[in-house]
């Protein structure tokens, strides 16, 4: 039998669900850094639960929780440099906070205010992207721009297990391979795309193998194990930065919350599955390892939890304190050079406001 091609996709896991190493930890694992990132994960979880509470009390619109994704999101953000570009979907707050996005910006966006997308930092990252996986192609385009201009920057993008079915994801992967781009496609497989389970999305055994269709480097990692996330991202980023081309990294995690606050997962999802997933969740896991190794304790956790609460509350206050944009805001950012008819509509809208 003649063979045209063979492929092997590696799976990375360092810390088991019980927080015990399953083998040697990656070379680069540095306890101080792990503590810092663990604190970040706790911060994200605090933010998330407060955002959900805000929505429940009518002070926020529909909100997409990131509960359970903290290791994946924070690990992705941690792997990037400021000058790289991030093209998120709509839940990767952990990664965005690492890049400088303010929690109040997240709240403004879900609070129905475009100014949430006007990140103070980083100015060049892509905004949240609602049309699933379209951002993946924008990231590929950004990577192409970096390559053409000879800039040592990497474009990183995320989509979900559902998003891996989207044709845009394939297009991004394929063009990254065709042009050999500094591009990292993260596929965050949290088991569900609203009500559709992972297995209904595709016949592919792994989502990592989507990358084979474009000839990219493919890797599957335990997305609830921060060590694995960091190592997977390190490999992908190094490949990209050193001109070895693009990667697809699949992160196995779980959506512990409803899809968004507008969803009720009990309609389609077994509670037992959710319960089992809590046994694998990333924060307890890392806490166990840190504690077992003397890098963390209850006291520090209590103090940091309080600090997180204070910081998030301050961000919430900032959000709640923003004034609604004036009516002309919907005209002012459409064109650099607005046409006269639009200016006339703008004037009429302002006049109408003043009359009202």
């Amino acid at each position: 039998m003649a063979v045209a091609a063979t492929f092997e996709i590696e799976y990375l896991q360092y810390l088991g669900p019980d927080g015990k190493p399953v083998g040697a930890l990656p070379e680069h694992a540095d306890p101080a850094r792990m503590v810092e990132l663990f604190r970040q994960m706790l911060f994200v979880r605090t933010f998330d639960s407060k955002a959900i509470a805000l929505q429940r009390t009518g002070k926020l619109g529909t909100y997409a929780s990131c509960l359970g994704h903290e290791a994946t999101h924070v690990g992705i953000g941690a792997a990037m440099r400021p000058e790289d570009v991030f093209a998120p979907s709509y839940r990767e707050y952990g990664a965005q906070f690492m890049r400088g996005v303010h929690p109040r910006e997240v709240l403004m966006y879900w609070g129905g205010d475009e100014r949430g997308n006007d990140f103070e930092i980083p100015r060049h990252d892509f905004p949240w992207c609602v049309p699933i996986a379209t951002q993946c192609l924008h990231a590929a385009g950004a990577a192409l721009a970096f390559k053409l201009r000879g800039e040592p920057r990497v474009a990183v993008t995320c989509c979900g297990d559902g998003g891996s079915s989207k044709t845009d994801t394939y297009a991004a992967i394929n063009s990254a391979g065709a042009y050999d781009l500094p591009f990292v496609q993260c596929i965050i497989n949290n088991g569900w795309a609203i009500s559709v389970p992972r297995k209904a999305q595709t016949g592919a055994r792994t989502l990592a193998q989507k990358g084979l269709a474009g000839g990219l480097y493919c890797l599957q990692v335990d997305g609830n194990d921060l060590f694995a996330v960091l190592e997977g991202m390190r490999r992908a980023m190094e490949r990209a930065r050193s001109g070895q081309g693009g990667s697809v990294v699949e992160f196995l995690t779980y959506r512990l919350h409803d899809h968004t606050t507008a969803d009720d997962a009990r309609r389609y999802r077994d509670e037992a599955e959710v319960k089992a997933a809590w046994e694998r969740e990333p924060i307890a896991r890392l806490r166990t390892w840190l504690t077992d190794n003397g890098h963390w304790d209850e006291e520090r956790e209590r103090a940091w939890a309080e600090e997180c609460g204070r910081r998030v509350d301050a961000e919430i206050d900032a959000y709640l304190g923003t004034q609604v944009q004036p009516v002309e805001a919907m005209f002012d950012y459409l064109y650099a050079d607005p046409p006269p008819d639009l200016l006339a509509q703008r004037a009429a809208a302002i006049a109408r406001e003043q009359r009202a």
Partner: protein
Amino acid sequence: MNVAANAKTAGAAAPAAAAGTDAPITLIEAITQALAWEMRHDDSVVVLGEDVGVNGGVFRATAGLQQRFGPGRVLDTPLDETTIAGLTVGMAAMGMKPVAEAQFDGFMYPMVDHIVCHAARFRYRTRGRLHCPMVLRVPWGGGIRAPEHHSEANEAIFTNVPGLRVVMPSSPARAYGLLLAAIREPDPVIYFEPKRIYRQYKERVPDDGEALPLDVCYVLRDGTDITLVTWGAQVKETLEAADRLAEEGIGAEVIDVATLRPLDFATIAESVARTGRCVIVHEAPKTAGFGAEIAARLAEECMYDLLAPVERVAGYDTHIPLFRLEMKYLPSTARIVEAAKRALAAG
């Protein structure tokens, strides 16, 4: 994925009509009722889309259908609108009657290619050998405080495309009758659902399988002073405007276009011939929105009847903003009344 090997069996095994209660229902319930009726009576009708299965659709339009008709009649699709559109075209060409759902208006753009290049052309291209009896259901329009891309009035993308029918009901009864007609129609139909009024009010909609004609405008209110023409969710504000005008003794005729393509212009022309004045109201941006076509027909065919310039009250020529500002974008009752008064004052 677990799709039944034989849809006929699955259909036959489904329980009989749960209907017949005759209680008033909402627009979206009328859609569910129409889908269920037609699935019961035509084995070739299949529903597909994202989350339409066990979840019953994010708006609950397909609630209970998979439970009732089985996974071979109600299919969750992979998350890709190109996929939904392309599969739908292929299934329809092979004699099924797929009713596909775009989860929201803002996600239908990747479907444009298959709809315009294929659904709208199979009959034409093959001289009738193949055709494409499909329906694309699209929750449409703004005003529900939803995130970005969940609030778009993008019907103008399709109104210039030959071979399509474009429908938009604005009441429970019309939703039921027009959806039945759309499914039975041998050519492709884009069926926009004004989501803002999904649950606005209830009315009794007999589950009798009676379709409504797919090519007429509905006169919702008679009047002799001015004609107000609209469709979709703006029917609400337009009727309110007619109420306000009535308070001032002005009789406004209100027409729900209902089917945009093909347009029943005769009904509009007949009304304007009587009133001499016309305000067109729509949610989409004004410029090159479908209101332009109606105004153009008036300019071509009714010029001598017009006593005043035609008015369009529409969305501004900008994107509908996120929800903190969206109600300032949508045409308000006050704007319609203003325009009507301008028209009444003119000429």
